[in-house]
């Protein structure tokens, strides 16, 4: 986070008293954190700025309900993730993925990706992998998308995902398994297409 001298308790106390400077500090402190969450779970039809704004408005609106039982960061992340999830659910039309739906750029780069080693990969390889994964994840149901992003991109544990989403551990594992299977199926179809 950006502002290392940020005093959470002091900031909350001042915000409660109506101190706008404290509200601004809290916003600036958590902005990069919320932006990362939004970028990881961004629906296609809404801009990241709009979603970040929506999340912070909710955070400030509910701040008087924050009891301090969990770290503020976790509390904010829960609001952020739920807001993203609701926005994803609002995207009711999710067209069925079809063979050949990969953009040409991605389809062509997958072979190269398989041969790329993590240690020797360039920024372009990292960006391409991100693009591929984002493309695959975008085809999943909102809940599956959330689980896969948290588990494989943000490297959260099942317990951490349970804390963020409130879902049971077994539900998280089942969702992750099914989502991975779907992603593998999409990749497999691509391989079959390449062979043909």
């Amino acid at each position, binding site marked *: 986070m950006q502002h290392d001298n940020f005093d959470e308790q002091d900031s909350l106390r001042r915000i409660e008293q109506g101190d706008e400077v404290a509200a601004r500090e809290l*916003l600036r402190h958590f902005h990069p954190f919320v932006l*990362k969450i939004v970028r990881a779970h961004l629906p296609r039809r809404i801009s990241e700025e709009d979603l970040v*704004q929506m999340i*912070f*408005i909710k955070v400030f609106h509910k701040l008087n309900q924050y009891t301090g039982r969990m770290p503020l960061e976790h509390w904010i992340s829960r609001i952020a993730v739920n807001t993203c999830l609701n926005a994803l659910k609002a995207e009711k039309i999710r067209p069925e993925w079809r063979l050949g739906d990969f953009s040409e750029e991605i389809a062509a780069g997958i072979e190269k990706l398989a041969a790329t080693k*993590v240690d020797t*990969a360039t920024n372009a390889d990292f960006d391409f992998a991100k693009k*591929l994964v*984002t493309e695959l994840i975008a085809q999943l149901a909102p809940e599956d998308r959330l689980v896969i992003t948290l588990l494989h991109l943000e490297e959260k544990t099942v317990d951490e995902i349970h804390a963020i989403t409130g879902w049971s551990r077994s539900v998280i594992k089942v969702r992750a398994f099914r989502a991975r299977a779907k992603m593998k199926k999409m*990749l497999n179809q691509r391989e079959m297409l390449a062979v043909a």
Partner: protein
Amino acid sequence: MKGTEQLLDHAFALARRAHDPVPSEPPFGMETAILAHWRNSYASSNTDIYMVRLFRWAAILACLVAVAGGVWKSRDIAQISQRLDPETKIVDSALLAGLDG
């Protein structure tokens, strides 16, 4: 399928390393909008708090007036009932009969 599994894990491993620049500060317009929203909700919640306090005191005052009124009335009623002893009742009824007559 195993190759696909590895490819997927490999893609995740590379994707995690992708550079994703995050601005150090929120855009000015967004910051202004969020803080304006917070100011409005803070002011309205404060107004709500004052209104709640006002209504609470008004309710307490109303209760006190009701209790005081009750106390005052009970003494008044006691005085009336003291006046209505048997002799007074007889005089009252005689007076009423005389008036009727």
